[in-house]
């Protein structure tokens, strides 16, 4: 998804204004010239300058250009990634790490054109391996669920 430089420049200027607006609530430090707002405002000032330079210095053209893959089934593959991540965040506390990760890997393998049996093997093997590395060896308390309950 390509945006024109003009569009990026305008977004940068809006971002700069938002940053400056966000600094208005910062309290000043008594006796000090450079408080918490100083650096963000400098950053916003530079961002606004870059934004203006990009918006003014670019030739006119379409504001947004969609790549070919966005009009094909490959768009589903791309969407599956963030959707899979959000689903993992929502389900992992209930299903546990192994089941949630296994299901995520299997779903992504199938969406990206892999075979069910091979995907199942990869999903089971890798989710168990990651569990061993992080939970058993590195002792990180990963989300606990059904499968972990069988092991404990």
């Amino acid at each position, binding site marked *: 998804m*390509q945006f024109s430089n003009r569009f990026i420049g305008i977004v940068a200027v809006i971002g700069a204004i938002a940053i400056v607006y966000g600094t208005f609530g910062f309290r000043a430090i008594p006796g000090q010239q450079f408080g918490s707002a100083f650096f963000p405002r400098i950053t916003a000032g530079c961002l606004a300058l870059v934004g203006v330079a990009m918006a003014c210095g670019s030739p006119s053209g379409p504001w947004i250009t969609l790549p070919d893959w966005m009009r094909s089934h490959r768009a589903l593959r*791309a969407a599956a990634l963030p959707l899979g991540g959000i689903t993992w965040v929502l389900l992992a506390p209930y299903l546990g790490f192994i089941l949630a990760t296994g299901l995520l890997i299997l779903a992504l393998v199938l969406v990206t054109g892999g075979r069910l049996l091979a995907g199942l093997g990869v999903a089971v093997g890798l989710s168990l391996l990651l569990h061993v590395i992080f939970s058993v060896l*590195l002792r990180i308390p990963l989300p606990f669920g059904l499968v972990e309950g069988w092991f404990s």
Partner: protein
Amino acid sequence: MSILTEALALVLQADVLITVILASLLGLTIGAIPGLTAVMGVALLIPITFFMDPVPAISAIAALAAMAIFAGDIPGALLRIPGTPASAAYVQDAHAMAKQGQPERALGLSMAAACVGGVIGVILLMVAAPLLAKFATNFSSVEYFWLALLGLSCAAIVSTGAPLKGVLSLLFGLWVASIGIDEVAGQPRFTFGSTELMGGVSFIPAMIGMFAIPEILRNITQTQTKITPPTMGPVFRGLGTTLARRRTNLLRGSLTGSMIGALPGAGADIAAWVAYAVAKRRSKTPEKFGEGHDEGIIEAGAANNGALSSAWVPTLVFGIPGDSITAIVIGVLYLKGLEPGPIIFTKTPELVYAIFIAFFLANLLLIPFGWLIIRASRHLLTIKAAYYLPVVFACCIVGSFAINNTAFGVVVMLLFGLIGWLFEENGIPVAPAILGIVLGGMLEFNFVTSMLKSDGDLLIFVSRPIATALGLTVLAVWIWPLVKLVRIRT
């Protein structure tokens, strides 16, 4: 001598050696798979190293990066798809050589060149870093402010195609660095009422997202074609003779790479392109370049690994990253309570020398492990993306979760992944944003400290000779693109 012995004892521990071997194998696998880069490999390794002692953690990063940069030559030679950006400079020659029926020669040459380049880079690191550290002990917050600004400016302006987009990326990183409680005033900034953001944006999930997610998305949306890599002959046949004949290229590439790598903001890919250009200019047969000639492969292959090692010079001495990988390393050092800078050389010299030794080890391991991966590359390249990309994504999730044991890390990773993808789609480089996140705090802290010292007098920034010289260098870096623009228009 006792420091060296102590450092050797630190490295020659079973756990360190096993970690190095495992990280090397992981690096080789990641580098050999088209589309997966060394930086992404390092990003994925960080959550694991987070829970290790400093020596195995840093050794693992060094080993993985060196192996992945070399292994990136494999898909480059066999499929004309550079495995890492550092392999792109000589991919044409390597692939042409493979098409002429000599894939093992192309890969053998790049393996040997990577080993020699890496070792020379480490020697430069060992010689230059302690000397510079001695010099840098006199630096104050003023010099550190200029150094941070120089590193950021180089990354945003010099090392990217479009300076304006590089600066945009950097400013985004600097804004992200300002999120959280301001250490000096205790003021929460841009936290939107979230307690999770009080400590700032977690660096590791953000970095994993920005480096790994765009790569996964790019690979997942590409049309998958069936790959049939060629068969491989003996790797070492005629290797010694060719290297002896091309020793000038080998040495010049190693030195060029080592020197470019030591510049803040420059990296292995720039080093490889420069070395390739130098090789072509100095060659007696420049017309053969691009048609399977060995000079470019040797010189640029040595340069990219040389740069990888020497990029640690500004990292360890000044805390200014030499490239994207060392930007990640700085984040890791801070997380481990080891502030990079000259003090690390006086406070824990054995640790610094252990890092040097680990680098030697990683570069020497390139030969046996490189041979192994060249032999196995036929099988690796035939693995379908549908099977390894979901696994890489699962690693991103577990790595982001593991840092703080919260799902918030996963959300941060996904959000920064989306931003990184939009950046890449629009030609905005990701590395300056990461450097901004890493160095933003240091830049602000040194500025405020200097202003407090001088009671608000800005002249403090040019009050010392080194500070003035650094300030002028920063100015030159900023003015350079404008001069170039004026030259083009006239």
